[in-house]
C-alpha cells in the first residue's frame, strides 16, 4: 500500500466504534481503522492496496445520525463519529448481502474452485446458512488459457480482478461489460481468455476472493502444507515470491510484498516454476564416450545417451578437474577460462571467480553481463565511478518525468513496467524513446520512434537544445562535474534541425522533450539493451549520463539513472567479481595494491596481473588455439553468443570442456564432462536485483536424483584443482563476500534472514542502506562526474542492396534468454511454442506473405526459418526476433562486432535479407 506521509503529521481522529473510543489515522477508512484495532468487519470487494470500490456492500456499518448504512471501506471517519458494525441493523445487512452472494454460487454452497474463498470465510463467520433465494443461470467455464482457469459461476462481480488488471498491472484486458443481469467480467470483447490480449500475469488470480479465477489444472485446489519465502529466478526486477508446497512439491507461486514488486508478479514468475520438474533434468554426471568426437553440429537432448555415458560423481569430477589441471600445467593458466552465470547466487559467482583466479591462475572469467549491460557499466564506471543504478524502479512514484529508452519493459521487466504505467496514470510525464512501439508507448506523453542506430545524434540534439536554451544546471555542473567544455563543443554540432532527418524525429519534438526533461523537478532515465547492445553502446550510455549531469537530474529521490538489469543476479555477479577486469567491488586486477589485498584475503600469492578475456574474446582465443580448456557453469554460449556458427565451432574445438547445468543445454552437447546442478528453488543464496537490493533466495525443494547443489560442485572442483577451501555453510561464503566487497560489508546473514532484502551500499552493520546514491558527488577520484562526449558512428554492418533489412534481437515476455528453463515450463511454452519473428505488415505484404507463414531470415553468417508475426510496432525495414529458440537460433544471424569499451556484441543491429518459404 502506498505510504501516506500525512498520517504521521496530521492529528488522529477520535471516534466511537461499537461503544469503545478509538483513534483513526487521517485518511484511513473506517474499515482500515477497525482492522488495525483487531475488529473484523466482513468485506469482499475491498483488498488492501487497491482502490476501494464499495460495490459489494458486505462491509456496511451504521453511523449514528445517518439515515442509511454506509460501506466502511469507502468512508473515512470524522471527529466524534459513532459507528456500529455489530448492532442488529448492520449485521442483518451484512448477512443478507452474504446470503445473496452465496445464492449465486454453484449449488449455493461453498466455492468449488478455491479452498480459501473469502466469501465462504465470512459466510461461515456470520453463520449464513443455505440461501433463501433462487440461483442464477450459471455461465460456462473458460479453460482456454494455459495458466488461468476462469469459472465465473463463482464470480461475485466485486471487480477486484478488474482493478488488478487495469489499475495495478495496467494491462487493460479485463472489463466489466454489459448491464443489468447480463453484466459480467469479460476479457477484451468477451473473448475466451486464451485468445484475448491477456498476458497471463495472474494478478487477477491473486486478487480473486472466490476462486472464479484460479491457476489452471486445479493447481491451487489443495491447501499447501508449507510456504517458503524466496525470490523470482528470472529477471533483474527481483520480485519476492512464496513457493507453496504440498508433500515437498511446489504447487503454486504467489507474489510476496517485497520492496521491488509489492506483491506483483508476471507470467514467468508466477507460472514458470515447473521447469524444475521437467523430465529433461540431468540427474547424474555424464562423461563423453570415448571415440564420440565433437563436431560443430548441435546435439539434441535425445542424443545425450548416444554421446555420453553416466558416471559417478567421483569419476566425473576427477575427469573434469584432472584435465583442466593438465592443460594448466602443460600450457599455462592462460589456456583456461571460465564462464559463470548471472542466474547463480552471489555466493556461487564469488566462489566461481575465486576458483578461476586462484585455481586456474587467470582472470579469464566472465559471464553474460558482457552480452547485456557491459557497455552501460563501462560508461558508468568511467564517468561516475559506479556501475550501479542511482535509484530504485519504484522511485518513479516520486519522479515528474520518466524517460524509458531502448527498453521494452513490458516484456523484459514486466513488473517494473507496471510501476511506470502506474506513474503515467498518476499524471507523470512518461517519455518512451525506442525504435519499437511497445505497449508502454500507449501510456507515454511523448513517444519517439526513432531510427535504429541513431541514439547518439538524437541524444546529442537533446543536449544541444538544453545548452542552446540555457536550461543546463550551472550550479550542479560547477559543483559536481568536469569536462563540460568538451561536451558543449561536441553537442554544438548536433542541432535538432540537423539531426531530425537522421533519427526520424521532428526537431520540434526533440526540443520539447529536451525542455520537459531539463525543466522538471525530478527526471529519471531508464534504459535497456536497446542502448547497450551496439558497437556504440558505451557512447549511447555516455550520452544518457551526460544528459543527467548536464541538468543535475541525479542524486535525489525520483531522479537519476537506471540501467534495467536483465538477469536476476547480473548486478550481484558483477559486484562479486565474475568479470575479467575486476575483483569484487570493481577493484581493478591490474592495480598492484588491490592485488596484494586479495592475495592476502584469498591466500593466493600469485594472482594474475593482466586483465582477462571477455566472452567474445574467449571464443576468438579458442579459435586462435590459445584457450584449450573451459569450465562453464550455467551459461549457454552455444545459444547466447553472437554469430553462433563461429561460437559453436569454437566450443567444439576445445580440448576439454566441463559444463555444469540443470539441463542438457546446447552448450552441454560440446562438453567432455557434464555435471548435473541445482535449479533455483533447490538452493539457498543471495541475489542482487536491479535496484541494488540483496535478497535471500531460500531452498524449497531437493535437487532431483543425484544432481547436486552448485556450491557443492564448485567446492569439489576446487578441491581437485588443488585449493584448500573450507566453507561449511552458505553464510560463510557470504561473510567472505562482505570482506571482499566493501559496499556489502554492513550486511549480516541474520538480518537478511529476518528482513529478506537489504539495500546496497550498506557499509556499517545496522545501517538502512542507501536507496538513492550520488546524493553528494560521485565515487570517482575527483568526486566529480565526468562528461564524456560522443560522436555519431554507424553500426558495424549496414543494410545494402543484397541484405536490405535490419535484424534486431531481444526477448519476449514468456521466454527467458536461451529458453532452457522457460521452454521446459508447460504454461510458458504453451503460450509461445514456436519460433516467431515480428515484421511490419507492409514488409510482409511486399513478400506476399501472411502472418503465420514461414519466413527465411539470412545474414552473411547464417540463416534461420521462423514464423511471421505482423506487428505494426516494428518499423518497416526491421525484423525483430527473440533468441530463445534452438530450432531457429537468432544468434546464428547476429554480428559479433564489439563495442571497443564494453566488449559487448552488436545484437541490436545487423543486415539481413528475408524471403517467404513456400
Amino acid at each position, binding site marked *: 500500500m502506498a505510504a501516506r506521509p500525512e498520517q504521521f503529521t496530521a492529528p488522529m481522529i477520535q471516534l466511537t466504534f461499537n461503544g469503545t473510543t478509538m483513534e483513526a489515522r487521517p485518511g484511513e477508512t473506517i474499515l482500515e481503522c477497525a482492522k488495525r484495532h483487531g475488529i473484523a468487519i466482513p468485506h469482499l470487494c475491498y483488498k488492501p492496496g487497491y482502490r476501494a470500490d464499495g460495490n459489494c456492500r458486505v462491509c456496511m456499518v451504521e453511523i449514528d445520525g445517518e439515515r442509511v448504512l454506509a460501506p466502511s471501506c469507502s468512508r473515512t471517519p470524522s471527529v466524534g463519529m459513532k459507528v456500529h458494525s455489530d448492532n442488529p441493523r448492520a449485521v442483518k445487512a451484512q448477512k443478507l448481502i452474504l446470503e445473496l452472494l452465496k445464492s449465486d454460487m454453484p449449488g449455493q454452497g461453498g466455492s468449488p474452485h478455491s479452498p480459501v474463498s473469502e466469501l465462504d470465510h465470512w459466510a461461515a463467520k456470520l453463520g449464513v446458512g443455505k440461501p433463501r433465494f433462487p440461483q442464477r443461470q450459471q455461465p460456462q467455464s473458460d479453460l482456454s488459457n494455459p495458466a488461468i482457469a476462469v469459472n465465473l459461476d463463482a464470480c461475485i462481480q466485486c471487480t477486484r480482478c478488474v482493478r488488478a488488471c487495469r489499475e495495478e498491472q495496467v494491462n487493460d484486458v479485463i472489463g*466489466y*461489460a*454489459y*448491464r443489468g443481469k447480463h453484466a459480467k467480467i*469479460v476479457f*477484451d470483447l*468477451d473473448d475466451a481468455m486464451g485468445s484475448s*490480449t491477456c498476458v497471463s500475469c495472474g494478478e487477477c488470480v491473486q486478487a480473486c476472493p472466490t476462486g472464479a479465477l484460479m491457476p489452471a489444472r486445479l493447481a491451487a485446489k489443495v491447501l499447501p502444507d508449507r510456504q517458503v519465502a524466496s525470490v523470482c529466478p528470472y529477471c533483474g526486477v527481483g520480485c519476492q515470491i512464496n513457493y507453496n508446497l504440498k508433500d515437498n512439491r511446489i504447487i503454486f507461486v504467489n507474489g510476496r510484498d517485497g520492496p521491488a514488486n509489492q506483491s506483483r508478479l508476471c507470467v514467468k514468475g508466477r507460472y514458470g516454476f515447473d521447469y524444475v520438474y521437467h523430465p529433461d533434468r540431468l540427474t547424474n554426471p555424464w562423461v563423453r564416450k570415448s571415440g564420440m568426437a565433437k563436431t560443430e553440429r548441435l546435439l539434441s537432448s535425445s542424443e545425450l545417451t548416444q554421446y555420453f555415458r553416466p558416471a559417478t560423481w567421483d569419476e566425473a569430477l576427477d575427469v573434469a578437474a584432472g584435465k583442466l589441471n593438465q592443460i594448466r600445467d602443460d600450457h599455462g593458466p592462460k589456456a583456461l577460462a571460465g564462464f559463470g552465470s548471472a542466474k547463480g547466487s552471489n555466493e556461487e559467482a564469488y566462489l566461481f571467480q575465486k576458483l578461476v583466479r586462484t585455481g586456474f591462475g587467470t582472470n579469464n572469467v566472465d559471464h553474460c553481463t558482457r552480452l547485456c549491460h557491459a557497455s552501460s557499466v563501462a560508461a558508468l564506471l568511467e564517468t561516475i565511478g559506479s556501475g550501479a543504478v542511482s535509484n530504485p524502479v519504484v522511485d518513479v512514484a516520486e519522479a515528474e518525468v520518466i524517460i524509458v529508452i531502448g527498453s521494452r519493459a513490458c516484456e523484459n521487466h514486466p513488473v517494473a513496467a507496471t510501476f511506470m504505467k502506474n506513474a503515467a496514470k498518476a499524471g507523470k510525464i512518461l517519455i518512451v524513446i525506442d525504435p519499437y512501439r511497445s505497449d508502454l508507448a500507449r501510456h507515454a506523453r511523448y513517444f519517439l520512434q526513432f531510427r535504429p542506430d541513431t541514439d547518439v545524434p538524437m541524444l546529442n540534439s537533446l543536449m544541444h537544445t538544453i545548452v542552446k536554451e540555457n536550461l543546463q544546471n550551472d550550479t550542479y555542473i560547477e559543483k559536481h562535474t568536469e569536462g563540460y567544455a568538451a561536451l558543449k563543443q561536441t553537442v554544438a554540432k548536433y542541432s535538432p534541425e540537423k539531426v531530425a532527418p537522421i533519427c526520424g524525429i521532428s526537431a520540434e519534438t526533440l526540443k520539447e522533450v529536451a525542455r520537459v526533461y531539463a525543466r522538471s523537478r525530478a527526471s529519471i532515465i531508464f534504459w535497456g539493451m536497446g542502448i547497450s547492445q551496439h558497437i556504440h553502446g558505451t557512447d549511447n550510455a555516455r550520452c544518457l549520463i551526460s544528459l543527467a549531469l548536464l541538468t543535475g537530474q541525479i542524486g535525489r529521490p525520483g531522479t537519476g539513472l537506471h540501467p534495467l538489469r536483465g538477469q536476476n543476479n547480473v548486478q550481484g555477479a558483477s559486484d562479486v567479481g565474475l568479470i575479467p577486469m575486476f575483483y569484487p567491488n570493481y577493484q581493478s586486477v591490474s592495480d598492484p595494491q588491490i592485488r596484494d589485498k586479495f592475495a592476502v584475503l584469498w591466500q593466493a600469492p600469485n594472482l594474475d596481473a593482466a586483465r582477462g578475456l571477455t566472452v567474445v574474446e574467449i571464443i576468438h582465443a579458442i579459435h586462435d588455439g590459445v584457450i584449450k580448456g573451459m569450465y562453464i557453469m550455467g551459461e549457454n554460449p552455444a545459444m547466447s553468443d553472437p554469430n553462433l556458427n563461429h561460437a559453436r565451432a569454437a566450443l567444439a574445438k576445445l580440448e576439454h570442456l566441463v559444463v555444469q547445468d540443470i539441463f542438457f543445454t546446447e552448450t552441454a552437447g560440446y562438453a567432455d564432462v557434464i555435471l548435473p546442478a541445482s535449479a533455483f528453488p533447490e538452493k539457498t543464496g543471495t541475489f542482487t536485483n536491479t535496484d541494488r537490493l540483496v535478497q535471500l533466495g531460500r531452498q524449497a525443494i531437493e535437487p532431483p536424483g543425484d544432481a547436486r547443489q552448485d556450491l557443492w560442485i564448485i567446492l569439489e572442483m576446487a578441491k581437485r584443482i588443488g585449493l584448500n577451501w573450507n566453507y561449511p555453510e552458505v553464510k560463510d561464503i557470504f561473510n567472505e563476500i562482505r570482506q571482499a566487497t566493501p559496499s556489502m560489508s554492513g550486511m549480516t546473514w541474520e538480518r537478511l534472514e529476518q528482513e529478506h532484502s537489504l539495500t546496497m551500499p550498506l557499509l556499517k552493520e545496522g545501517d538502512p542502506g542507501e536507496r538513492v546514491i550520488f546524493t553528494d558527488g560521485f565515487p570517482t577520484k575527483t568526486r566529480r562526474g565526468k562528461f564524456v562526449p560522443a560522436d555519431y558512428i554507424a553500426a558495424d554492418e549496414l543494410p545494402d542492396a543484397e541484405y536490405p533489412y535490419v535484424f534486431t534481437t531481444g526477448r519476449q515476455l514468456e521466454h527467458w534468454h536461451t529458453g532452457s528453463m522457460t521452454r521446459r515450463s508447460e504454461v510458458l511454452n504453451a503460450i509461445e511454442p514456436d519460433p516467431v519473428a515480428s515484421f511490419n505488415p507492409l514488409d510482409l505484404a511486399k513478400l506476399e506473405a501472411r502472418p503465420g507463414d514461414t519466413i527465411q531470415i539470412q545474414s552473411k553468417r547464417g540463416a534461420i526459418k521462423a514464423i511471421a508475426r505482423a*506487428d505494426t*510496432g516494428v518499423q518497416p525495414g526491421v525484423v525483430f526476433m527473440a533468441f530463445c529458440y534452438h530450432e531457429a537460433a537468432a544468434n546464428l544471424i547476429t554480428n559479433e562486432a564489439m563495442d571497443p569499451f564494453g566488449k559487448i556484441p552488436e545484437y541490436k543491429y545487423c543486415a539481413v535479407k528475408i524471403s517467404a518459404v513456400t
Partner: protein
Amino acid sequence: MNDITIQLSQHARAEIEHWLKKYPPNRKRSAVLAALREVQHENQGYLTTELMDAVADYLGMPKIAVYEVASFYSMLETKPVGRHSISICTNISCMLRGADDIVSHLERKLGIKTGESTSDGKFYLKQEEECLAACCGGPMLMVDHVYHENLTNARVDEILDKLD
C-alpha cells in the same frame, strides 16, 4: 503487439474534436459516447472492433474501457444490424397500454425476434429498450430516432410500410 489498423474518417475526427472542446484537456475520455455514436453512424449503424480501437487510440483510452461503454449502452451496436432501427418501449406505462401486443405484432410481421434483424437487412428490432420518456403517448416506439405514439397494429404497419 500493436494493432490500430484503421484511421477515423476526417468527418468523425472533426466531430470528436468538436466534443473534446467541451471537456478539460486531460478528460478526453469524456467524449467517448459522442465519438462512438458518430463512428457508428458512419458505419451503417454498428461498431467494429477496429473502429472501437481507433476511438480508444484517438482518445487515449484503454481499448477495454471503450468496449465496456459499447456493451453497456443500448444505442451502441457491436454487430451488423438492419438499416432501420426500431425500439419499442416495454416499460410500465407502455406495457399497461398494450406494448407487449405491439412487440408480438412486430415480431410476427417481420418474422424475427427482438434483438434480431430481418434477412434483407432492412429492419432491426432492438432488444430490451427501456423507458423512452413518452409515457403520455404509450404505447410508443422509436424508428431511426423518430418517436411514434399511441400505436395500434395498423398504425405500426403504416409507419413501417413508409420506410424504404
